[in-house]
């Protein structure tokens, strides 16, 4: 399965007010090309912090919050999972796209290609609802459940390497942040 197809399911299954925080690079660019929403918060440069940012937002809002993270990024900041496990934000859904490589930086195989199972790590950090999925059907089933039931959820989706259709990467972090924030300001 491809990351693009899963992101598409995610975007199509949630209503406009659910924030989606996306990992830097192709994950953000694909998300933007699927559908740009003011409650998409694309990460820039802050590799490894996607789920931590989503966690911070989850603590401050009542709606579900979705993080689209990656295996290489999570390994850079694995403690982020322990913090989520500790605080148990019931509204947080972490989706980890696991292509077993650092795709952007010349396809170096990542630790998940060599022994590390991030679903088990999540579980070991106290995130009881941790799953590893290999097909779109499996993902769809668990994600729909995650949208209606209390979490936190950690869903590791094993995906094919390679990117889907992407938007251009030249967009402005400050502007995206401003429009994202504005959606939370009551006028």
């Amino acid at each position: 399965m491809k990351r693009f197809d899963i992101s598409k399911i995610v975007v199509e299954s949630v209503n406009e007010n659910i924030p989606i925080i996306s990992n830097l690079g192709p994950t953000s660019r694909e998300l933007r090309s699927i559908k740009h929403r003011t409650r998409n918060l694309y990460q820039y440069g802050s590799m490894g912090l996607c789920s931590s940012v989503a966690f911070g937002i989850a603590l401050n809002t009542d709606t579900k919050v979705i993080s689209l993270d990656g295996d290489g990024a999570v390994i850079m900041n694995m403690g982020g999972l322990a913090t989520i496990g500790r605080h148990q934000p019931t509204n947080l859904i972490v989706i980890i796209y696991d292509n077993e490589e650092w795709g952007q930086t010349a396809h170096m195989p990542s630790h998940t290609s060599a022994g590390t199972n991030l679903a088990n790590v999540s579980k070991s950090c106290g995130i009881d609802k941790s799953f590893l999925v290999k097909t779109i059907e499996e993902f769809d089933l668990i994600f729909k459940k995650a949208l209606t039931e209390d979490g936190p959820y950690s869903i590791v989706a094993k995906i094919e390497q390679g990117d889907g259709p992407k938007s251009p990467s030249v967009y402005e972090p400050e502007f995206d942040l401003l429009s994202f924030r504005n959606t939370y300001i009551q006028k």
Partner: protein
Amino acid sequence: MERFEGIKHLANHIQNELLVSNLGPTSNELWQTGHKDNFFYTYGAMGLVSSVALGMAISTDKKVIAFDGDGALVMNMGTISTIGRHQPKNLITIVWDNEEWGQTGHQPSHTSAGTDLEEVAKSCSIPKTATVQSLENLEEIFLRALNEDGPWFIVAKVKEPTDKGPYVAPIEPEMTTFRVRNFINK
């Protein structure tokens, strides 16, 4: 079990191995048990003990032991994954787990609230793992680890001492590096 006792017991068995110790009280206590030139005390590099030990382990045939802490390891959990990936047979990681950041005001750490570091190590495919509560079990598993291929990952549950720990050891980082390098090249 208190960490100081545990360190005393294990340090007795360390002769030709290299030992890397976590910053703060772990290094102070290790110094108090009797300095040896194969002890590498880290300073300031919180979270990097096991990473430094991993680097040593892949560049020497000696056994390398890391005295890490739960608070430090949670800061750099990815290192467990790196160890699991490289499978250094000669690396033994001991985590002194007091479930708190003792130095900075006894804030409870993540291991007091859901995180099980031994399970994390297993999830990162480290083959030999254990959690021990008593001195006897710790010593027994440590002696096994010294003689059997690893990598080993041993979580030693310790309680924080009620009295003030030993005085700050007069250790100079440059001298530590110099001594340990000489020891390896001997």
